[in-house]
């Protein structure tokens, strides 16, 4: 399509390396910038006190395992 001569492979290699390096550097900067911005945002408050029991995460117990459809497991 491009109709390049025997040196075309060098042109495409040079251009390919340029694109990969610049795109890689751009993505690296983007990920650093987003990471720093995320760290700057205030963290959501997690209230797990007795007055806010709904917010507390459910805790898995051995009793739940024993009451499962398969029944209790033995070692």
């Amino acid at each position, binding site marked *: 399509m491009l109709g390049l001569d025997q040196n075309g492979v060098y042109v495409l290699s040079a251009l390919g*390396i340029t694109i990969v390096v610049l795109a890689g550097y751009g993505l690296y900067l983007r990920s650093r910038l987003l990471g720093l911005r995320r760290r700057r945002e205030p963290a959501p408050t997690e209230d797990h006190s007795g007055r806010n029991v709904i917010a507390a995460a459910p805790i898995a117990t051995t009793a739940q395992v024993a009451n499962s459809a398969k029944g209790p497991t033995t070692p």
Partner: protein
Amino acid sequence: MATRIIGFGSAILLAITAYGIFFVARPDRVQGDAARIVYFHVPIAWVAFLAFFVVFVASIAYLRTSNPRWDHLGRASAEVGVVFTTLALITGAIWGYPIWGTWWSWDPKLTTTLILWFMYLAYLMVRSYAEPPRGPRYAAILGIVGFFDVPIVYLSSYWWRTLHPQPVIGPLAEQQPSASIVWVLLISLVAFSALYVFLTRVRVDIEQLTPAT
């Protein structure tokens, strides 16, 4: 917002440059299609020089004012400049192989460019490892000293016997190229300069958001 516009603009200009390289520029009579590498090798090298000039100015300003904003600009520009110098060395080596028959030669232009690359790599290392306030000060001194290599790189093909071609454009060019060559080179120059501004602005933002150690 301005950074995004510059980034978007540089992407469009780079796409136009790619079109110009493959569909507007003609192959060289002697070099064939290898000459197409020049359309991005030269602008990349130009942007590296521009980046180090910004480091030079920012370093002087930082030593005079001790304002950390100048240090941030200098560090950002040095990092982007090192990336572009790396690409100038790589694309130059890829152009050199089919034309000179070797990837590397200890030619004055290539050697002084390699020295430039090492100098700003040293700048980044000093800036990373030396604690403030000494780190930014030492790096600023290196940023000023390192810039004196830029005119040496540019003029090396006049001062010494060299394999590297003379400048193809500008006041030191021996013969002015055709209009299509000039246009593709100029668009490429603007595209890579816009990309430099975009990357440096993002890098400065990172520098300003990074908590001081």
